[in-house]
């Protein structure tokens, strides 16, 4: 069942070399947990962005935690390219497994359904097929021939990690319409979640919140992290800290600037001090 941990102990459930799935920038990004991973000096992570990512991936890459990035895109959005990501790909410091958004969704759905692959239309003629030898073109066995289609192998992360507005005392996590996180959790071996707060009661007991709830069955461990998505926003709760994000984009443009950013905002756990272990059930 769901364990209640401190932020640091939650981060400690991720092991070096793990296949770690992270949400897109618009969706419940676990920034406090990402900083905790950096502080723990993680190495050789295989990041899977579902399907794209921003500062969370850039921070982990810049800090040297990542060996491989599997992604449809890493970018800072309006603030431009993700500088540590781009630099690391250019220098070969990280291996890049380029993908495309629906392929990442479909490959996670394959793992969710316990099937070894999922077909996907499109893709044929894209150089992605050239750089993804694990994707295979077959002739659609259900057609009369001459209908090529791509099969994507199932993608089963070791760990799905995200931040949610709240959980209940049983470990059920409210995700609203962010169902890419539901699929991530179904597909992953372990799911680690930080939340703004733990509320009393049972989210599954009432049909309205239940519709947006990930059952505790899938949640390996929970930690409370107030403002846990900061400097990103949490839709309907707090806005992105745009000034801070712009600072990040500016500083991370150089290795030195990135180191200065980390020294100021990541290395010292005090920046996530509002984070306290929640009471165990």
């Amino acid at each position, binding site marked *: 069942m769901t364990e209640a941990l401190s932020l640091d102990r939650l981060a400690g459930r991720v092991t070096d070399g793990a296949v770690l799935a992270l949400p*897109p920038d*618009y*969706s419940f990004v676990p920034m406090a947990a990402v900083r905790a991973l950096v502080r723990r000096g993680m190495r050789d992570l295989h990041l899977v962005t*579902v*399907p*794209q990512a921003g500062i969370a991936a850039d921070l982990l890459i810049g800090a040297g935690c990542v060996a491989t990035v599997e*992604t*449809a*895109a*890493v*970018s800072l*959005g*309006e603030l431009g*390219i*993700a500088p540590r*990501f*781009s630099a690391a*790909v*250019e*220098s*070969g410091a990280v*291996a*890049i497994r*380029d*993908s*495309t*958004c*629906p*392929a990442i*969704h*479909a490959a996670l*759905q394959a793992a969710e359904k316990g099937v070894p692959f999922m077909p*996907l*239309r*499109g*893709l*044929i*003629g*894209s*150089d*992605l097929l050239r*750089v993804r030898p694990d994707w295979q073109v077959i002739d659609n066995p259900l057609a009369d021939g*001459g*209908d*090529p*289609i791509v099969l994507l192998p199932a993608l089963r992360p070791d760990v799905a990690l995200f931040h949610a507005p709240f959980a209940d005392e049983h470990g059920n996590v409210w995700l609203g*319409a*962010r*169902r*890419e*996180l*539901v*699929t991530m959790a179904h597909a992953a071996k372990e799911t680690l979640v930080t939340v703004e707060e733990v509320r009393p009661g049972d989210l599954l007991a009432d049909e309205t919140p239940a519709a947006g709830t990930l059952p505790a069955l899938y949640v390996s461990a929970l930690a409370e992290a107030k403002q846990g998505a900061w400097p990103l926003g949490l*839709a309907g709760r707090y806005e992105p800290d745009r000034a801070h994000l712009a600072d990040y984009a500016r500083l991370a443009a150089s290795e030195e600037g990135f180191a200065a950013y980390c020294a100021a905002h990541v290395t010292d756990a005090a920046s996530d001090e509002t984070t306290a272990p929640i009471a165990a059930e």
Partner: protein
Amino acid sequence: MSPEKTALLIDVIAGMLEGLGRVAVGASSPIPAAAAWLARERGGGRPQVSVLGSGAHSDMTDGGRELFDRAGQGRIDAFFLGGVQIDGGANINLIGTGPHPSADKRFPGSYGSAYLYFVVPRVILFRVEHSPRTLVEKVDFVSAPGTSPAGVYRPGGPHALITGRCVFRFDAARGRFRLASLHPGHSLDEVRTATGFDFDCADDPPVTPAPSAETMALIRGPIGGNLAEVYPRFAAKFLGGERAA
């Protein structure tokens, strides 16, 4: 870019969405979003518009995959793509320049292009920067190809390419762009020099018409309101203090 040019682009794109049922717009795409809203205003509520990553302006409740599933179901009639590079065959590259994987200059990645370009009937390519650097003879990496051989499932593909200088239409049968109009103040010679690929062209291409007073009123009114809500920084620059967040 000047507010006049921005309004021109919004207007010309909106014209390409007329009569469609459903248009989706990717994240961080204020001009395509404004064009889709403008088309909806003119069409009395049609096309239906989904703007990704925009909170209240999104109508998706099945997570990040819903856009792609909708497109695969044939429920999206038009979408927008850009490109680090776009070539004369409408191949697009969103990954970067130079060899893969260690690009000379790495950009974010292919996003959903390698799928949506195949299944959305009317994909509109939009890239303001019109230079030999962006419009190239051959892209360094094909994120998504402009055309496909017979037999490949492809109900969709490129419809047009709109830049800061002109409008190209894509001729799928010939696999080539054709210059459709030059924006006011731009010449054919200038466009030829700025374009890295060969394209078809009439001897005397028309000028992209400037937005009507009625269109400008819509852009300053309801469309500006939507922009201010979803893209406050863009709206402030484009429309000035009257719409600043």
